[in-house]
């Protein structure tokens, strides 16, 4: 009988067991379809800007830009605004769109059919007010299995126009942190101003976060508000916005702003599916969510929104 060398056997077994659990997957990727992508988010605070690309392969490093397009935007199905190329596939016009108006886009590119889309820009909420509560409470965010010390943000709103939706986010102004010679900490605003997002949660069933995301609170689909109403959101007592070292800063030691986005249905669907798509990418077991598109004969988005920024706290 052959004598088995146990040491050799052990080494062989150990090598096999520890041979690594991660490997590249040899895969025949399907061909990438030839589709144009049009991206334009319209709001009254910015001039019109449209980006146009070709759909790129999954392993390509950059998008192929479309630079020979004819891009026209129509305001209220009447006045036409021609856009011109300024580079990087970006087409612009020195025109600020207005709330309450309807806009449509037509893009002509050789090799593709007529590319078009329609949207409206909603008005902002006329009587919105928001205050940061001064008494903390333990709050258990739905995305967490633990609880945090949190302060309430009380928001009063007037009715939301039909088919429009609200989205909330909280922004903290970023400061640079310096140590002077006499060891006194100094904070100065970064120029140009820079804002970081702060986690925001809702305990109201008509407004929730989506996916794994903790930054946005979205009005739920199919919910409507015909009368004035009050909403309570929650923000952690510590926010992670300080300049150097990423230390937690107490809420009341930061400049805090509440952004309220009033969205057209197209913007809302695009934003919602975008957030879910992006946040669920961290979970390899989640089914991917396709991002909404309203572009006829293409991909991307052409949608309007309005934004209000409310100061909640000043350091």
């Amino acid at each position: 009988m052959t004598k088995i060398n146990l040491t050799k056997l052990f080494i062989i077994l150990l090598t096999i067991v520890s041979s690594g659990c991660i490997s590249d997957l040899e895969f025949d990727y399907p061909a990438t379809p030839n589709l144009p992508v049009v991206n334009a988010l319209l709001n009254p605070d910015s001039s019109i800007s449209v980006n146009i690309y070709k759909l790129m392969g999954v392993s390509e490093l950059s998008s192929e830009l479309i630079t020979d397009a004819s891009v026209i935007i129509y305001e209220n199905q009447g006045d036409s605004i021609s856009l011109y190329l300024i580079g990087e596939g970006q087409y612009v016009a020195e025109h600020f769109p207005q709330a309450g108006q309807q806009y449509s886009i037509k893009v002509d590119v050789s090799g593709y059919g007529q590319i078009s889309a329609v949207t409206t820009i909603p008005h902002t909420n006329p009587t919105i007010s928001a205050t940061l509560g001064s008494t903390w409470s333990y709050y258990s965010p739905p995305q967490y299995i633990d609880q945090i010390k949190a302060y309430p943000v009380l928001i009063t709103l007037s009715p939301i126009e039909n088919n429009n939706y609200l989205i909330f986010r909280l922004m903290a102004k970023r400061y640079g942190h310096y140590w002077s010679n006499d060891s006194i900490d100094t904070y100065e605003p970064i120029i140009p101003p820079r804002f970081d997002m702060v986690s925001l949660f809702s305990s109201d069933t008509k407004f929730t976060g989506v996916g794994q995301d903790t930054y946005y609170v979205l009005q739920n689909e199919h919910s409507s508000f015909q009368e004035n109403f009050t909403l309570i959101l929650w923000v952690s007592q510590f926010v992670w916005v300080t300049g150097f070292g990423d230390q937690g800063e107490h809420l009341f030691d930061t400049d805090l702003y509440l952004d309220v986005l009033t969205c057209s249905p197209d913007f809302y669907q695009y934003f919602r599916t975008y957030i879910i798509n992006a946040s669920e990418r961290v979970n390899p077991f989640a089914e991917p969510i396709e991002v909404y598109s309203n572009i006829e004969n293409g991909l991307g988005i052409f949608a309007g929104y309005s934004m209000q920024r409310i100061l909640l706290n000043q350091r």
Partner: protein
Amino acid sequence: MKILLLPKSHTYIHSMAFFPLILILLTISPEGMAQRKHLKGRVVDGITGERIIDAQVIDLNNQSLTTTNDNGEFIIFSNQDELSLRVQHISYIKLDTTINLTVISQINIPLFPHNYELQDVTIQFRRSMERENSTIVSQRLDTRQLNSIPGLLGEKDIVKGLMLLPGVSMGSETSSSFHVRGGNPDQNLILIDGIPVYNISHLFGIYSVFIPEAIQEVELIKGGFPARYGGRLSSVCDIKMREGDRYGYKYDFSVGTISSKIVAEGPIIKDRSSFIISARRTYLDLITMPFQALAQEEDNYKQTLGGHFYDVVVKANHRINNRNNVFFSLYSGRDAIKAKTKETYPSDRSINESTLGLDWGNFTWILRLFSSFASSTYSNLSVSQSNYNYGINSNFTFKSPLEPNVSATNSYASGIVDWALRWDINHQFNNHLSINGGVHSILHLFSPGKVTQEYRGGSENLSSTEGTAFLAPETSAYSELSFSRDKLNLSAGLRFNAYFPKNTSYTFVEPRLAIAYRVNSWIGLKSGYSIMNQSILLLSSNGIGLPVDLWVPATSNVRPQRGVQYDFGFSVNPPHFQSVNISLVGYYKQMNNVVEIAGGMSLMQTATQWEKVVLQGMGESYGTEILIEKSVGKLTGWFAYTLSWNNRFFEALNQGKPFPYKYDNRHVVNIVATYKARPSIELTCAWSLQTGGTFSLPVGMYPGNPEFFPQGFYDLLSGNDVPFPDLLEYYPYRNNARMPSYHRLDIGANFTKKKSKGIRIWEVGIYNAYSQKNPYYLYWDVKDGKKVLRQFTLLPFLPSVTYRYKF
């Protein structure tokens, strides 16, 4: 791709044509009127005296077949003085005997297990085919063979054995949940001694809750469902626990790589009552805890992580008198995982302690009275409870000599409790015709998502509770006729079900039919038809096997699932290969109101409003199953092949177009072989191959809006940056690609030796013997600046050894 729409009415009544058929059966002149003699018998295990349920008793003169009831009893009528009987069961050696009815009218027939040579008895081994073992209505499994299949880290697992059968496919590699003929895992009714078990997973699905040594029989029904079963669409897995040795005390210890087990059994009152107790516990936590403590680098900061599971099964039975027997069985099993941190601050002597725990488990029991009234009427009356719950708990305490103590507790719990009352009755008119009937009432108590928060600190005491429990009664009644004559075996039944969730009600009528016809001595045809409805649903937010799943009732907004299935097949016992049985079955199944969770919605986020995250749609599945089995001889085993298609259709998904199901495994091949090299050495290997499941693969990317996510985000599992977060992916349709094929070879060997006081067994096994890197999940990564798809393999190659001693 064809999807058939089913009616949306709350009341489903189909194929009333079954009634005439039943009436015809009832009007068959019972030749039993002319039968003056009968034999009443009980089939028992020749070694332990335990009753054998579902043994087949064949009258060889009349070619009529009857099966033993839940008390192991049967009755056969005859005009003749001598009765030639064949008694068989898949786990036992077949027995042929002749009985003189002028002398004997009652008999106990002992059957001996296949591995009889390890016992102190010798009987003649009969080499003959087991052709009656598999019918279209059920697949009865040889627990001895299932137990010989090597398990992961030495833990034999009945459920992993089920996954080697045709028509059954596994979900993810570690999951205990299985898919039968394209159904979802929640569509399997899994019964322990007749009680439903809602979660069969231990350690996130790596093991199932069943202790193999305590199981007497496993029956898997995939189609042509008997009317006595209901409430699930895809399968019934009926697991019967052993009753315990009636003659003497026996013990069975085993020490494995990660767990130990003990089984103790014996008579309570000799030949009148017996018991069996089995228990199992893992001890990875006990082994690793001291090492974790030693590994702590900082004196002021301690962190521990531990987890374990246990199972306890208790069963007892008692013969009150010749007519009445009482049974009690109980199962309790639980998983617990706990992470604990303790931080001390020497400066002010304050202590921060936090714990995070996750636990889930089942607790079930049943009390059953079996009675025989007249010579051929039996009754089974039972009361039972099944309780499944899980919880996530976090606790934080702060203790300081200078400040008031603070404690905060947060818990999330979900569960389901069933209380059930059931009465089944069986009457046998003659050798050819019998009727079963019964009523079954269940009171479901659902508590999907209860959130409790408490805070105590200084003068502040806060507490809140969110989420409510609610009741949903369900009642069903059934009748089932079984007819067996010459070449024909037929079972026709009707089941009526009424279900009363909040603010609404549903009633269903479910016809059932199973027919087997023997063309000649070696070819048999079989066919089945059944309608099933399912009033409780499992909402599962991912496929990882985490217990963060909700069992919820159908409501006025979420409709019950409904399935219709047709089977047709044949079996062949080649005349010159009597030990081989070949069967081929084709099936077609439609499922309505199957559920999915809306994308991006977390169950924990919406537990109190789960109805809002449910999407309902339709499914269809069809395919062919081939099983070639050899059940006697030194070499036994089977070859199973399934070719199937499995699609889903949801209005809210994939732009309303049909798409392949995640577990649409086109080809599944399983080969199991056991070779008895010597009486004391048994070698087993099991090889599995299946087409990879489907997944959504992007075929293009385009720029998104980076300002939406200025911070970027991290992969939950790897902690790495998600590559190219600003690029959106384009999918032409859902589940447009397939994972690589999955294949694996497990090998094992059992070395048995008789000792002076018992039997010692060494069980050696290797899981994934050639270390195939099967993908557990896929993810995107960056290589040389390009996005590449990578796979993570969980279980490459795992040897195991288990020591077992029986006495």
